[in-house]
C-alpha cells in the first residue's frame, strides 16, 4: 500500500476519523484542523509499504490527537521563544510530550522498581522491544493469556503510580498521589 492507497483509505474512513478527532479534541473546528493535518502528513511523510492501512491510519490519527491534547495541556506555560527556530512544526508537540513525560518518569520508575522481575521483563519486551503478546509468550515460556494478565497488572501499577485518579464521574477512590 502506497501513499495513494493510504489516501483512498483516509477518504473511506474520513467520517470515523473525524469522529475520533472530535471526541478527542472536544470541538469540531479543531477536529477538522487535525484531519487536515493528518492528510498533509500522508502527503509529506512517505511511509514504507504499509501492509495494513486501516490500523496504520488510525494509529497515526490517535498519536496526532494525543500530541494535540498534551500540547493544549502545556500551551499556557510554554516557552514560545523557540518556536521560530524549530526545524519543523510537527516537532513542537514532540518536545512538549518530552516535558510531560519527564514529570511522570520518577513515579513510573518507582513503580517498576517495585515489580517482580517477570513483570519488568514482560514490560520491556512489550514496550521497548515492541514484541506482540504471542512473541512475548514464546520468549518467556508462558501462555499468551498469562502474558496478557501480567501486562495488564503491570500497566495498572504503572498507571496508579503517583497519580490521584480524578475521573469526572467518580468519587475519589484512587491511591494517594504525590
Amino acid at each position, binding site marked *: 500500500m502506497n501513499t495513494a492507497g493510504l489516501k483512498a483509505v483516509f477518504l473511506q474512513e474520513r467520517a470515523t476519523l473525524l469522529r475520533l478527532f472530535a471526541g478527542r479534541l472536544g470541538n469540531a473546528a479543531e477536529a477538522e484542523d487535525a484531519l487536515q493535518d493528518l492528510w498533509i502528513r500522508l502527503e509529506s511523510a512517505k511511509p514504507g509499504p504499509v501492509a495494513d492501512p486501516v490500523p496504520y491510519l488510525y494509529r497515526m490519527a490517535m498519536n496526532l490527537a494525543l500530541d494535540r491534547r498534551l500540547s493544549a495541556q502545556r500551551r499556557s506555560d510554554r516557552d514560545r521563544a523557540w518556536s521560530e527556530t524549530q526545524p519543523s512544526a510537527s516537532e513542537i508537540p514532540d518536545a512538549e510530550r*518530552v516535558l510531560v*513525560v519527564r514529570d511522570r518518569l520518577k513515579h513510573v520508575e518507582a513503580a517498576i522498581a517495585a515489580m517482580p522481575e517477570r513483570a519488568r521483563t514482560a514490560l520491556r519486551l512489550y*514496550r*521497548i522491544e515492541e514484541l506482540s503478546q504471542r512473541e512475548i509468550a514464546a520468549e518467556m515460556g508462558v501462555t499468551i493469556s498469562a502474558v496478557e494478565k501480567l501486562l495488564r497488572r503491570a500497566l495498572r501499577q504503572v*498507571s*496508579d503510580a503517583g497519580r490521584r485518579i480524578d475521573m469526572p464521574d467518580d468519587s475519589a477512590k484512587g491511591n494517594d498521589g504525590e
Partner: protein
Amino acid sequence: MSEYNVVDQAIAWRLREPALDADGWRMLVEWLEMPAHAAAYDAVALDHAVLGEVAALRQATPAVVADAMPARRFRAGGMPWAFGSIAVGAVAAAVAVVVMSPTGQAPGNSAYEVAAAPGKRQAVSLADGTQIELSGGTRLRLDRADPRAVALIEGEAVFHVRHNEQAPFTLNLGEWKVRDIGTMFNVERKGAMVKLQVGEGAVALEGPQQRLRLSRGGAVSMRGDLEAATIFHVAPESVGGWRERRLAFSGERLAEAADRIARMDGSDIRIAGELIDRPFTGMIHLTGEAGKDVPYFAAMIGAKWRRNGDQWILSSTEAFPQ
C-alpha cells in the same frame, strides 16, 4: 462503575491496539467518546510514552568493565542483548552500559577508547557521575589518569556532566574544546565539523583564539573557526533526540544527513551527483532498519534509491512523487 474498571479497560484497549482491525478501531473511537474513558485512555497512553524512557527497561543488565581495561579499542556491541530477539527491528539499538572505575591505573599509557559500532549504542558512566551516551559510529578517548578529560574522535554523543568547580570537565574536539558549566549537551563531530547543542546548563566552546558561551537551547554548527559558524537556538528538550531515533536537520547538506542516518542504522548510504550539497530541513524518526529508513529518507528528499550490494545509492529523479 468504579474508576478502576475504566483504567483497566483503557489498558486493555491499549494492549489490543496493535491488532485492531477497522471495526475494532470504530469501537474504540466510540468507547473514547465518554469523557471518563478519554481521560483514562490519555493517562495510559502517556504512560506508554513514559515507559519508553525508563532506564530500568531500556538497559540490559549492567556489566562492570573496570580496572583491567587495556589501552586498546573497546569492542562495541559486544554485550549481547539479554534475549534472543535481535531480529526484531525495534531492538536494533541494544543499549549496553559500561561502568568505568578510576582505580587500578595502568602503568604508562592510561588512555583508552570506547566506541559504539554503526547501528549500536553505548553508555558510559564515569567515576565522577558523568554519563555519556554514544550514538552509532562514535569513538571516544578517555583517560584513566584524568577522568575529567574526554575526547570525541568522531561521531555523536550526549554528555550529562557532573559539575565540579575544582576540576572542570573538558571535552576535546581537535582544535576546539568544550568546557562545561554543569550541563547536558549533545556533540557531533566529523573531522573539523563540530555541532554542539546545549540541553541544560551552559558550556564554553573554546578554540585557539576564540571562545563562545552557549546556554540552554543554544546551538552552534561550525567547520574550522567561528567566523563561519552558524549559531542558533533549538528546543532544549529536543537535544540528543537521536536517543529516541529522532534526527532533526536544519539546512544540513544531504551528504551529512545521510551520514548521520547511516551511523544510526549501521548502513552504508551514498548520495550521488548534485544531491550531495543540497540542503535538507526536516525531521526523521528512524526505525533502526535501513530497509525501511533509507527508502523513507529517499522519498522525503524526492530521490530515487537503489542498492548495490550492501550500499544504498540515492540519486536525483525528475519524476516527482505524485
